[in-house]
């Protein structure tokens, strides 16, 4: 295992987060079984107080997932030198079968925690905690993912063995495994670009429609999810090429580095932010008829839709500027 300080920090951090999630599981179960807002019994009052704790803990988990997502990629990038053939984080993550799954689960947890916080925010505005049971059920369903992330991440780091000089024979007999990132089959460029812009425009348009009219919420939410997927593919397929000004460099992680002006951060943050808000709109829509929410929900959803649209727009704007300013000229343009 590689005892890099960042590795230790990530493992320690995720252990703490798992602890917090496990700790919150019991009160969450209690809420599911015994919650009764009409009752004034002491048990109920204690449960209500506990919900403050769980909300605080989960807000913290969300913040942590955001930071650790980027730190994880950073760390993978820093250790790429230990593995023959690994050029950057993309190669490091490929070294053992835990790397990419850990990253994907981290991403999923970040999105899920964000959606949970939106649910929580709305639930708190209803005068009778209308969503509380659904909220905690959702939490209990994604809690195992958080634990899974800790395990996957630890598994990845613990199984890393750097390719070091072996005692007698130098290169030839050191662990000769090549982690060259093979040319993953990326989506062909022109269709990917078309898809990206079309879907983005549709999503933004739908979001603005929802903002103005309050309708089409499921549609917008679905389009947000689609925009997320298409944008990620777009980054792999052509956006990265323009940033690196190389027709073969598809890595989604190198754009987070200093050489490229850390442009990856605003790109990913606007994309993820827009997705969370967009998905949030859809997740809330089934509850529009609950009495205590009926007055406030539409306004909240409209704001979410507007924010999501703006974020998607910024993302597309950044991408367009990057393409236009790039010195790379790809055939066909």
């Amino acid at each position, binding site marked *: 295992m*590689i*005892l*890099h*300080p*960042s*590795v*230790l*920090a*990530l493992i*320690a*951090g995720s252990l*703490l987060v798992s*602890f*917090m999630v496990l*700790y919150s599981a019991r009160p969450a179960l209690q809420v599911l079984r015994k919650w009764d807002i009409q009752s004034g019994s002491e048990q109920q009052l204690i449960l209500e*107080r506990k919900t*403050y*704790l769980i909300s*605080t*803990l989960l807000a*913290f988990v969300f913040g*942590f997932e955001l*930071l*650790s997502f*980027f*730190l994880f990629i*950073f*760390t993978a990038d*820093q250790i790429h*030198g*230990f593995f023959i053939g690994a050029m950057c984080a993309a190669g490091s993550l490929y070294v053992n079968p835990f790397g990419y799954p850990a990253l994907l689960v981290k991403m999923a947890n970040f999105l899920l925690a964000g959606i949970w916080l939106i649910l929580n925010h709305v639930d708190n505005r209803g005068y009778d905690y209308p969503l509380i049971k659904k909220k905690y059920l959702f939490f209990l369903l994604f809690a195992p993912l958080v634990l899974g992330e800790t395990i996957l991440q630890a598994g990845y780091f613990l199984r890393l063995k*750097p*390719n*070091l*000089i072996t005692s*007698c*024979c*130098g*290169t*030839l007999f*050191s662990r000769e495994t090549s982690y060259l990132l093979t040319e993953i089959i990326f989506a062909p460029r022109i269709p990917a670009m078309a898809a990206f812009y079309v879907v983005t425009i549709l999503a933004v348009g739908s979001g603005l429609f929802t903002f103005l009219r309050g309708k089409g919420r499921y549609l917008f939410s679905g389009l947000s999810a689609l925009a997320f997927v298409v944008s990620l593919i777009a980054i792999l397929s052509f956006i990265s090429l323009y940033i690196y000004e190389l027709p073969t460099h598809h890595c989604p992680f190198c754009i987070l580095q200093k050489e490229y002006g850390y442009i990856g951060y605003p790109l990913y943050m606007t994309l993820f932010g827009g997705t969370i808000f967009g998905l949030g709109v859809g997740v809330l829509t089934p509850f529009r008829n609950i009495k205590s929410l009926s007055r406030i929900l539409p306004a909240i959803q409209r704001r979410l839709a507007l924010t999501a649209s703006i974020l998607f727009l910024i993302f597309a704007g950044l991408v367009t500027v990057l393409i236009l300013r790039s010195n790379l000229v790809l055939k066909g343009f």
Partner: protein
Amino acid sequence: MKSWIDRQRNIIDYTLSSLLRRKRKNAALYIVYTLVVFLLASVIFFTHSLKKEGALVLKEAPEMVVQRIVAGRHELIPVSYLDKIKNIPGVSAATGRLWGYYYDPISGANYTLMVSEDSPLSSGRIEIGEGVSRARLAFEGDTLEFRTYDGSIIELEVSGLISAESALVSSDLILMTEDDFRRLFGISEELATDLVLRVGNPRELSVIALKIAELLPDTRQILRDEILRTYDAVFDWRGGLLLVILSGGLLAFIIFAWDKASGLSAEERREIGILKAVGWETSDVIQAKFWEGLVVSLSAFSTGILLGYAHVFFTAAKLFEPVLKGWAVLYPHFKLTPFVDGSQLASLFFLSVVPYTVATIIPSWRAAIVDPDTVMR
């Protein structure tokens, strides 16, 4: 949105005044916290910086070193092997290298002796590193005596000191001419310590290494990248090990933080009760506690980092010297170049602020759920 900002501002106002009112308790926490960050920062900055220095130094190193191995041990290599090596396509240059160790009974130290290719030394003259200079109190113009392989003494004059910038690697180094070296150690002209070569295209390194292994089966080929990797790994390992050892201290810190956060004095409890009674809600109190934690964390974090930075880069990690020095007689006087980047700060953040915050969430919540009507009783 504006009202949210106003609300935070008001709560922060209360938080700051509350912190100042309990100076002693918060001062203790601040000091311990800063100390923890300081230790962590020192370790992380130090190991990272050493790694970078090593990498920088190695950048100039030859891409491949070929050494002769006899019965598992490194032996002198015939210079004639160079003929075979130079013929391999892709090899742009290859020469022999002469270097070795010399034990000096007067100072009890081991020096590294090396023949430098481009330094303009004339026969009988040497350049010495600052550690050698200190150990033998030898400066430009002085003469040093060396005992040769056959028991005779030769005298070599110090022409100058090796510049202090590379003190980390050159502290115990002595540079001399090839003739003097061979005379000192009795090595014939046909032999060298090892062979180094440079290649035109780095991608061909492994191919060339394979060829050499075939042509010269009694040699091993060491690639510079491998050295770098091993070097990095060792430093990470050492640094990581230190951190693991420090984790005991970190745990104590977390328990301390938990304790401080839970141990509300009667006065504090009363204060929170009053706040709840006059209209503060549980989440308002949690907010206040959050700001409290943030203020303490940020101030301790920044102070700890600044102190760690000063410690590592201005005093060359003085506090770690006993640990690093060991039996080294020629411990270098070095000055590390600051190599601090975002990921180090992020790691520090995860190892200090995150555990602290986690340790205080539950106690903060417990404090905040005080019933408003307790002050009425």
